[in-house]
């Protein structure tokens, strides 16, 4: 069931095609063992969301995802009552003539039945637990939502006034990701294990590329990763390419049938790697120099 060491975690994740270094494996292991939420920060495209998916897959747990956005409120995360269906139910009771005064409390009670409850991700995860709850891009949500989340994550229970308290039998594994568009509140951070995911090194990235996109040949993979790593070390790019971009680019090259990285095919597929016009020019020049030697 649960892996009992950091290396076991790494092996499990490796089995799903997610390669992680021992830092990430250690932190993941601790998060599972200490039952603490795992807060992942890092550049976009370093595999924060992918880690959550890999954990869920490796432990055979359902993945419940809560994508945060500006203006998200507790009802979006917890539950709503299905009003139209409640009304239909009421009308049906009326039509069958079952609403006589004595039975009124019962009819009322039947309105707040669990079948009229639409569970949103957090409640869903608590009900289905053991599960993995992924709170994606928490930095996009507002402060108030963070406070709400803090409350849920400290007790793993939710109270619905009409129904009672829903408590997870085993607390779900919680993974939060953030792109650092704003600082999270300390109280929330304190509750979590924190890990900053960096871009992987050359060999690690080649491995990732080979395992995620096995159709790409070994020599092309190495060429692509070498080029990307060199680009990443420059500091004049508006947005340095992440691992996700490396994968995209390699797949694009493969789709065009390229067996080697050359300038012509590289410049045609550059759209998969860089997403700014200013960057495109710089990358073209850099590739020019790189591939000439």
């Amino acid at each position: 069931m649960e892996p009992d060491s950091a290396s076991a975690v790494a092996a499990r994740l490796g089995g799903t095609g997610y390669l992680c270094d021992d830092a990430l494996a250690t932190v993941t292991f601790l998060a599972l063992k200490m039952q603490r939420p795992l807060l992942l920060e890092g550049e976009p495209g370093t595999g924060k969301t992918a880690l959550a998916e890999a954990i869920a897959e490796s432990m055979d747990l359902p993945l419940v995802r809560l994508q945060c956005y500006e203006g998200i409120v507790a009802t979006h995360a917890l539950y709503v009552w299905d009003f139209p269906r409640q009304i239909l139910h009421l009308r049906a009771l009326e039509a069958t003539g079952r609403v006589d005064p004595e039975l009124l409390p019962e009819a009322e009670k039947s309105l707040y039945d669990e079948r009229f409850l639409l569970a949103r991700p957090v409640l869903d995860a608590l009900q289905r637990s053991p599960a993995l709850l992924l709170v994606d891009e928490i930095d996009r949500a507002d402060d108030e939502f963070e406070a709400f989340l803090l409350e849920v994550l400290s007790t793993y229970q939710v109270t619905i006034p009409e129904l009672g308290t829903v408590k997870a039998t085993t607390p779900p594994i919680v993974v939060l990701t953030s792109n650092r568009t704003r600082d999270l509140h300390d109280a929330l951070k304190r509750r979590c294990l924190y890990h900053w995911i960096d871009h992987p090194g050359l060999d690690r990235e080649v491995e990732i590329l080979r395992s995620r996109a096995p159709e790409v040949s070994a020599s092309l993979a190495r060429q692509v990763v070498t080029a990307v790593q060199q680009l990443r070390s420059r500091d004049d790019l508006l947005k340095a390419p992440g691992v996700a971009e490396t994968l995209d680019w390699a797949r694009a090259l493969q789709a065009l049938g390229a067996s080697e990285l050359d300038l012509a095919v590289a410049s045609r597929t550059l759209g998969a790697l860089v997403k700014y016009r200013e960057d495109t020019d710089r990358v073209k020049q850099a590739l020019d120099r790189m591939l000439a030697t």
Partner: protein
Amino acid sequence: MTAVRHEADEILLGFARALRAAGVAVTQDRAQGFVEAVSLLGLDDRRGTYWSGRATLCAGPDDLERYDQVFEAWFNARDGLPRSRPADAATPVVSNFPDEENDLSLDADEGDSDVIRVAASATEILRRRDVASMTSSEKARLNAMFAALRPRVPVRRTARQQSWRRGNVDASRTLRQSLRQLGEPAEIAWRRRGLKPRRVVLLVDVSGSMSGYADALLRLAHRVSTGSMTGHGSTTGRTSVEVFTVGTRLTRVTRAMRLRDPERAIVAAGETVPDWSGGTRLGETLRIFMDRWGARGLARGAVVVVFSDGWERGDPALLGEQMARLQRVAHRVVWVNPHRGKVGYEPVQQGVLAALPHCDDFLAGHSLATFAEVVEVIGRA
């Protein structure tokens, strides 16, 4: 056995304490989490200790560098442990000397504003006086007058709707109301798109050439951070004002600026900012701001105010490029220049020339009266 364990706890908690002394905000529960994590991995696992400490004691990339240093010092050898990326490697700390010549010409400029004698109240005079030319007692009086500024929060429409007297039909509220009456059709509820406070980002130049204004500008920033009122009844949520200082490096002083008391806020900011009265590399620091904060979302749709005189020591072309980037992301870019309001001022500094095409507003900011204008422009944006 127990003696050994006791000792290990002591070492670990001592490490947490050393880390706190080094400036990482380690709390009691964090330290306990650390001990728990290490005991799970085993005490002999050096790398495990390193990673579990990093996960339990650190709260952000800024902490990682300090953590590494303290870890190295406390547990002696690193044994080939990976080194965290320095939090701000791209920012060499270069403290240029303040530009004496420019400073002198500035003083000469202000000579005549000293001799203004108008038959108005002392307060009114202070309101219009250049803050750089004030004596310390005048400054003390002026500081109290900052409280009279009434910053308003700029607002924007949200995607979410809120109930209102008219607008679109709010189907679910209407249904809910009718449900309350056992399904009888009830009054129709309406809604419209809500209003939310827009984010405000203030970038304050604290380089040598701005040293006469930095204090007053930070006070203004503090006033905007803490005193902003929502002028609209239907706005929800707190205002978020982010304050950064720029110079040779970029420093986030938002936390300091949230302290209620202005004096304490200024002192706290002074402790955070390492490059008071240094040189100006505006383009470079702006690039770091855009990379680390702005483009990720902090400046997106925000009102960004840059307080600077535009005396750029670096490459003006870089400044222009970064300002263009900023303008593409932000809702409105306002440039506040303390020298703008002076007689005979022409925007000739290379930095200003490069930045000006990418600003929506170009305002003066050398006296309380002009600060009030700035506050007004922010509120209307």
